[in-house]
């Protein structure tokens, strides 16, 4: 007891210090990241004349729902169509893209074949090519087959995600034991059945991570639709809001709509993260240990 006594307070002091430090850093980060969203929320709740004349970080008269009503009514609800488009482009591409990445990564992890490392390295180098650089070549390709300004011109290029393949391979190596696959084979399960019934279950946290990454990447891929699309009814919400924002000089009342639109357009992302972050954290952990 007397030996341990002097050590005890020292230990607490240390952890208290580091804990306070950590909390402080986190608090600063939280403020840093949340202030723009707070600004957006407050701005979206104001009427247009109060928007310029009142404190940008605090509420004036609460007009959020009236503003949302205006936005939905503007030009026959084109905003809602953009949101729907975004969900289709993003949700669809992320779902199919995750499946493709999972199958590809799984195959690279669990099967031995000639050129495996070569394929993996080629895919990996794809991670380094930014989507921005691909937009113009893609436009020229789609022009050749007369398919620009269509749903597919944005959807098809969004399906693949080399980073997803990379993650899937790492996770599959770490979380799907070869013995288990061997056992499945002995029990007479086909390879495809094993993949869907056994391996994907084990890879679920990884797949959710891939899905989220892919979802965000497609949601934020702004240049591709900008270059491909001319038909307003095909726009994703990012491009639609951007178009409005470039016209603010000409039609100043659009500014309010852009702000409320921006607030609404981030809600799907926020919802996706809140629902899926639990899995994501697990997935990141699993990858880190191995």
């Amino acid at each position, binding site marked *: 007891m007397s030996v341990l006594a002097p050590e005890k307070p020292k230990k607490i002091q240390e952890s208290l210090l580091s804990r306070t430090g950590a909390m402080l850093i986190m608090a600063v980060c939280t403020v840093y990241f949340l202030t723009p969203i707070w600004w957006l929320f407050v701005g979206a709740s104001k009427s*247009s004349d109060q928007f310029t*004349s009142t404190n940008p970080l605090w509420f004036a008269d609460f007009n959020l729902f009236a503003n949302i009503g205006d936005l939905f009514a503007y030009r026959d609800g084109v905003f809602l169509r953009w949101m729907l488009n975004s969900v289709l482009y993003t949700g669809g591409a992320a779902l199919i893209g995750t499946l493709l990445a999972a199958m590809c990564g799984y195959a690279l992890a669990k099967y031995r074949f000639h050129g495996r490392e070569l394929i993996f390295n080629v895919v990996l180098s794809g991670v380094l090519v930014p989507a921005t650089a691909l937009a113009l070549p893609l*436009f020229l390709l789609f*022009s050749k087959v007369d398919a620009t300004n269509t749903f597919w011109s944005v959807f098809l290029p969004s399906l693949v995600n080399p980073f997803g393949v990379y993650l899937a391979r790492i996770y599959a190596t770490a979380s799907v034991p070869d013995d288990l696959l061997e056992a499945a084979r002995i029990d007479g399960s086909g390879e495809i059945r094993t993949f869907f019934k056994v391996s994907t279950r084990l890879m679920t946290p990884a797949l959710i991570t891939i899905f989220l990454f892919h979802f965000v990447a497609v949601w934020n891929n702004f240049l591709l639709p900008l270059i491909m699309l001319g038909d307003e009814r095909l726009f994703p919400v990012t491009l639609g809001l951007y*178009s409005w924002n470039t016209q603010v*000089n000409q039609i100043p009342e659009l500014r309010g709509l852009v702000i409320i639109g921006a607030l609404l357009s981030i809600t799907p992302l926020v919802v996706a993260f809140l629902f899926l972050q639990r899995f994501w954290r697990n997935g990141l952990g699993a990858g880190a240990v191995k």
Partner: protein
Amino acid sequence: MRKRLSVLLISALALSACGSGGDDTGDTTSAASCAPSSGPVNLTYTTWIPGIENVVKVWNDKNPNIQVKVQTGPNGNGGTYQNFFNQLKAGNTPDLGHIEYDALPSFRVQDGLFDVAGCDIVAKAKDQFIPWTWNQVSFGDEKSAWGIPQDSGPMALFYRADLFEKNNIAIPKTWDEYAAAAEKVKAAGGYITNFSQSDINQFAGFTWQAGGRWFANDGQQWTVNLTDDKTKKVADYWQGLLDKKLVSTVPPWTTEWDNAYNSSSAWTWVSAVWGANSIMSGAPKTAGKWRVAPMPQWSAGEDIAGNWGGSATAVFKNSKHPYEAAQFALWLNTSEEALALLNKEAQLYPATTAGTKYSYLGNPVEFYGDQKIYEVFAEAATKVTPDFTWGPTMTSTYANASDGFKAAVSGQGTLTDALAATQKSTVETLKSQAIPVKE
């Protein structure tokens, strides 16, 4: 930040697009082959004019054989011009495109446009346009027209009548009087105006009025002259106001900027006709207090206006039906029904002589104390000097000048320095794009 980033991306693309151009202009357009097509025609038209569908619908209802489909996107410099360039490379441009006057030369230089002067209907309609607007599409060449003028932005002086009266300040008729008024306004606790540090177009409008001519093309090569005496005069004038802190310098087109007007901190704005709407929606608290007067002059007794903005409807080189495209463009930009709708939907101010006199532009405007403000602009539209030419690389010229102006506003260098630097970089840009330029 995002805007800045996209500008970067777009200019990066512009570079890559330029690098490999040149060879794929296989079919040399035999100029002036502008004959009507037989049978039904479908045209595509890309523009960012708000509410354009309603205007085009009127045309489509009347012309079952020439159907126009509208495509849209962000404004020109926001991405649509870059899209046009990409589409020129891929050979799938729309038939018609919305191009601002200051961007038209860059499409001409890239050989992207169809010369509609060869269409007999265009030659006949030419006289309907205010001469200077026609010059914006012909580049001063009698025999060509690289689009149909659509709208114009004659400039005038918006001022707070109530504040000027209350403080016993006369409405300035010359720039000297304007500078003197600025001192009095400052003494009364305001700023005479806000100097647009990052939107160079306003400065270009001042220069246009003063007689500065930034670009010229003699058919062989371009001349760049951002530092001629007239431009210097304008730059020195505003530098003087900046040095004495008589003008505010919030960035244009922001909420701060709106607020400067809404809170009565800025008392005047020398702006284009479309500025009427900017004030109306940006400064709702000042309703009824604004009036419009002609632009201040460099010498007493003169009567010259500048222009800020305006655009053309151009026919692209790849269009298979240039005659019908020109026909639609003429209807869109000369007929009273179309001009009235364009004005209602998007506040476009016409480029035709008759257009400025239409009855709906003669109405009193409540926000401006029931002044018939458009009569002032109709007058100004006829006072714009005709020979101002834009260069073929305005995007980079604007960007460079804007960087220099922002520095000058924050005390580093002067506006004249900024223009000298822009002169140098513009000549370099032209050379790097293999556009012949006189040193």
